[in-house]
């Protein structure tokens, strides 16, 4: 077993031990010599565990798998592009490195009104945008108006594509230069987590550049935009006057290489130092190469099978339970995904603070039990159409996994026909009422359970949403509302705990695995960590 797989296979606890060991070791080294910290070892470390290596400088080339569509943070549509804009733009708050907790960014303090219907933020003073204009309350209001106020001059090119996901916001007002207040139309207990998504742009630059702002982005982040050779690379340089200190890298270059073979080649040839979201196949190719390591971190993502409960075969709870007993997740995760994912026992990954460990007791791989349940249900085998996407990296090795699942199901007496389709076509097909059984994944940060529960298993997300199980449960819906609006933390946690149990009692889905975020990283890169939010920070990273 190579170093990489060993590390991927170790538990979170072991990883922390490894980091501590490394920290002790580094103390004995001569100053100036880089401490030997295997980046993968540090993946789940909390900030106090993280050992930063002294040093700075260098040009870092990051392969983000796709050329950005625009660099306007308010218009980005892909995760690839967010990797770039996250270095240029910032929100009022950000996730504390190594955690999903909120910490100050452009705001230094905040206060929620007693009725929960307004939030007041104290802004950081002395911050300037990359174009030299000051950051202040007016800029925050501008960012909000550009995205949500249809009467704003710049709304047509800045609007948030999904206003219903921010429907709790009613407005914003400038209290004084460095104080801004958000008013809410209804209480929303995760406001602080969401407000980080509201990134702040330079009002001056937006007014000046107009439709070209996406090609000349101006924010407050640690790196500022320098040039964009379309289809080739985006170049950022250090923002010397960043409020958080001097960022370490001289330059960051983002390239979007699409073809997996070419991605590995660029990394191995040294053209690229970090490749984001690498596939299990690339992980295998990098194993045994001493110049690279695989940095990985847990996510809140779920890869699952959605069973349409309105389809006769799946209307029987026992058949759905049998499906859960029939699938050999361990083989899928270890053999097909080479341990680049963790087995899923329930809808939420253990990375969520409200993860309910009792979900682990519901099902295990047990084909005999599956057969017994099917017999009890009087299941009559008929070909079930099993939909599988092609070419969607979010779906991991969708076809190989589908084949194993088909085999597992056949072994207990459930015959399926795989119907593969290109990703976008597939996405349309699975949201039709004829859909019977499909692979699915939902990729979120392990922060807001609501994003998972409301995204795939709620009344609100019935197609055209992604509740392709067509499953709706009244108790679950009530808890969903509590989880969203209650200001009592304990009540919220209890609601989410119970919801996980309801899902496993009624099993409209078969949870299969939680993917890990995977980066191929050159050993010349220091201080690079996979954040549990799915993002990464580059202000401490250096190359040498």
């Amino acid at each position: 077993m190579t170093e990489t797989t060993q590390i991927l296979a170790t538990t979170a606890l072991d990883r922390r031990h490894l980091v501590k060991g490394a920290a002790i070791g580094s103390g004995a080294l001569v100053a100036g010599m880089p401490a030997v910290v295997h980046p993968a070892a540090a993946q789940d470390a909390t900030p106090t565990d993280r050992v930063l290596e002294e040093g700075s400088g260098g040009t870092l080339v990051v392969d983000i798998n796709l050329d950005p569509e625009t660099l306007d943070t308010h218009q980005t549509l892909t995760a690839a592009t967010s990797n770039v804009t996250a270095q240029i733009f910032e929100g009022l708050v950000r996730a504390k490195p190594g955690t999903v907790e909120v910490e100050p960014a452009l705001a230094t303090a905040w206060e929620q009104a007693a009725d929960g219907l307004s939030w007041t933020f104290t802004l950081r003073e002395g911050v300037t945008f990359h174009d030299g204009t000051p950051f202040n309350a007016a800029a925050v209001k501008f960012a909000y108006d550009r995205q949500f106020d249809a009467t704003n001059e710049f709304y047509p090119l800045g609007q948030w594509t999904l206003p219903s996901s921010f429907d709790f916001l009613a407005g914003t007002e400038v209290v004084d230069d460095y104080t801004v207040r958000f008013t809410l139309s209804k209480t929303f207990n995760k406001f602080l987590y969401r407000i980080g998504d509201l990134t702040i742009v330079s009002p001056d630059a937006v007014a000046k550049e107009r439709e070209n702002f996406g090609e000349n982005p101006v924010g407050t982040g640690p790196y500022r935009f320098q040039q964009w050779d379309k289809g080739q690379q985006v170049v950022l340089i250090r923002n010397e006057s960043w409020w958080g200190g001097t960022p370490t890298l001289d330059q960051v270059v983002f390239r979007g290489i699409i073809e997996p073979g070419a991605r590995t080649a660029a990394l191995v040839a040294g053209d690229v130092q970090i490749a984001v979201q690498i596939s299990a196949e690339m992980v295998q190719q990098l194993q045994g190469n001493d110049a690279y390591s695989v940095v990985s971190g847990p996510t809140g993502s779920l890869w699952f099978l959605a069973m349409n409960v309105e389809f006769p075969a799946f209307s029987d709870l026992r058949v759905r339970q049998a499906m859960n007993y029939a699938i050999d997740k361990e083989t899928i995760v270890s053999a097909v995904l080479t341990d680049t994912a963790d087995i899923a026992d329930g809808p939420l990954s253990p990375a969520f603070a409200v993860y309910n460990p009792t979900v682990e007791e519901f099902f295990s791989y047990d084909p005999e039990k599956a057969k017994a349940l099917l017999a009890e249900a009087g299941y009559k085998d008929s070909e079930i159409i099993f939909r599988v996407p092609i070419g969607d990296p979010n779906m991991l090795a969708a076809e190989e996994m589908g084949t194993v699942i088909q085999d597992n199901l056949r072994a207990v007496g459930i015959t399926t026909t795989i119907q593969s389709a290109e990703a976008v076509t597939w996405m349309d097909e699975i949201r039709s009422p004829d859909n019977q059984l499909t692979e699915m994944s939902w990729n979120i940060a392990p922060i807001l359970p609501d994003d998972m529960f409301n995204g795939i298993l709620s009344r609100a997300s019935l197609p055209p949403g992604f509740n392709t199980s067509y499953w709706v449960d009244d108790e679950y819906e009530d808890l969903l509302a509590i989880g969203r609006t209650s200001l009592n933390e304990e009540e919220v946690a209890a609601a989410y705990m119970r919801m996980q149990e309801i899902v496993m009692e009624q099993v409209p889905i078969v949870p299969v695995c939680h993917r890990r975020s995977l980066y191929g990283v050159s050993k010349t890169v220091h201080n690079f960590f996979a954040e549990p939010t799915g993002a990464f920070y580059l202000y401490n990273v250096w190359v040498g």
Partner: protein
Amino acid sequence: MTRYILRRIVQMIPVLLLTTIFVFSMLHLAPGDPISLILNAKNRPYTQEDFDRVAQQLGMDKSLPMQYLTWIGNIFQGDFGTSIFMRRPIGPILVDRMEATAVLALGALIFALPIGIGGGILSALWRGSIWDKLINAVIVAGIAFPTFALGLFLIVLFGVQWQVLPVGGMTSFGDGSLLDRAQHLILPAISLGVGPAAIIARLTRSSMLEVLSQDYIRTARAKGLASGVVVRRHAFRNVLVPVLTVVGLQVGFLLGGAVLVEIVFSWPGMGELIVSGIQQRDFPVVQAGVLVIAVIFILINLLVDVIYAVVDPRVRYA
């Protein structure tokens, strides 16, 4: 001649219109649309209102024929529209991308022409020898080897193993010198050029053999001319006529093959633009891209026909 060219240009119009209708229907009738993709980007459920609003913004709430007419009307005014995904006007994007593809296609031709024609002539002259057989084997391999696989193979060999050539992109970051550009062009141009080179070689060989068996060649030889002079003065020009046609067709192949090569080598050309446009259901980009390629393809065919007349004075157009 001028009348002929004009007539051919007028004939282009119905062909192009049919092409646009075909591409437009293919895109819009296939499952999947940019609206859902835009809304799905936030990974949160959306409502029918969200959907309708985005549809209206994109002009996709109108009937399909109406959408087509609006689009084609704008094209006639020189407006290619705005990319749904990049939110930028498509015209300048196409110019950038076309330039890159043109460089790549030209590089491939520069590689393919001398090798194809030279190899074909030599193999015809050495007919039946071991060299002829060897060249033929290489030709068959060149035609059979998939462009895609060849590209990856070259990357692994030259870029990773020996590290003598860059593995992708059009220029190194921070370097745009001619030498740097040439180094980036070599591998993609070879990957793209091998297929056409092989096809040109095969055709040159058979064309050469045919010409060499003609009476006038025998006459020239009978006059006592040196074999080299016979080939250069009497045979070569006649060999070129069919070869030119195939070269013209190969340019079409180059534009198609460029799609694969551009993906493998991260070459910022038209092919890469159209493929990502299809993946993202960026309809205006795909439509404009295909239209431009169709125009170029037709124009090149026209150009070949004209050159034909120049090379072979016997060819006249009514």
